[in-house]
């Protein structure tokens, strides 16, 4: 079985992203630090298979977000993401 058949997408990471950012992040737009492509977080490709969550850019495969849960800690690497535009629920 190829790793491509096993991959999921950013929708599957919606729960853990809510732990980190409180509100929904799957509809947020992310800009890849590798190639500059922008798209909804839901369209990132998810790998990791139990070790953690690796969300990669569908254009260039850069790991845009990496999340690992260790004992008592949720660690996230944001170095692959340049911008995040998050739909705002707070009225001005």
């Amino acid at each position: 079985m190829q790793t491509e058949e096993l991959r999921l997408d950013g929708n599957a990471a919606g729960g853990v992203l809510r732990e980190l950012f409180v509100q929904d992040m799957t509809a947020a737009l992310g800009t890849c630090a590798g190639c500059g492509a922008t798209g909804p977080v839901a369209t990132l490709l998810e790998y990791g298979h139990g070790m953690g969550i690796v969300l990669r850019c569908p254009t260039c495969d850069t790991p845009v977000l990496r999340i690992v849960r260790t004992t008592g800690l949720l660690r996230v690497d944001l170095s692959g993401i340049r911008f995040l535009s998050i739909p705002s629920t707070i009225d001005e």
Partner: protein
Amino acid sequence: MADKPFIARGFHGRRAAAPPGRLPPGQYETRDFPVLSAGPTPHTSLTAWDFTIRGADDASPSVRWSWDELQALPHETPTVDIHCVTKWSKFDTKWEGVSVDTLLDAARAAGVANGAFVLAYCDGGYTTNLPLADVTGGKAWVAFGYDGAPLAPEHGGPARLLVPHLYFWKSAKWVRGLTLLPNDEPGFWEQLGYHDRGDPWREQRYRGDP
């Protein structure tokens, strides 16, 4: 999350009994070969493929083997148990490869700057760090055969590192080389909190585990 977990009535997970003493703590035996990877399967042709051992600083010489040169080195055929940190273990897996000792001996002879640690690097950008002592002394291979056939791409082919006495993420898939380092440098998962050594018998999953 700190509250007492809710136990699902009658849920046991995918676990089966295994001979005592053979499973590290927290592991279960699987007969499948689950795929674990942090990214898509790279496709490097054997003519473009090579394996390099280099030193930490750029001034150090490096040694490089083409696919054919690697194949010409003495082969070994270890049969080993493997243990994945996601809790499955697989017994009696049969591999074919070249001992990392053979490669490091050549590197030493070529004057590659030595170090107490290695960082394995791979196609697709994956890396993992290991103490040098864990890849020497007949404990580690660059493996290109599995179960009598060429190693399949989803399991790391054309070649992967095989370090069976450590958790399997250390056995980097699609490996292309080793960098010898004076100081330990965290790899892909280790940066995120996985253990720098990863001994399954001591359950060294995360940094800070004893």
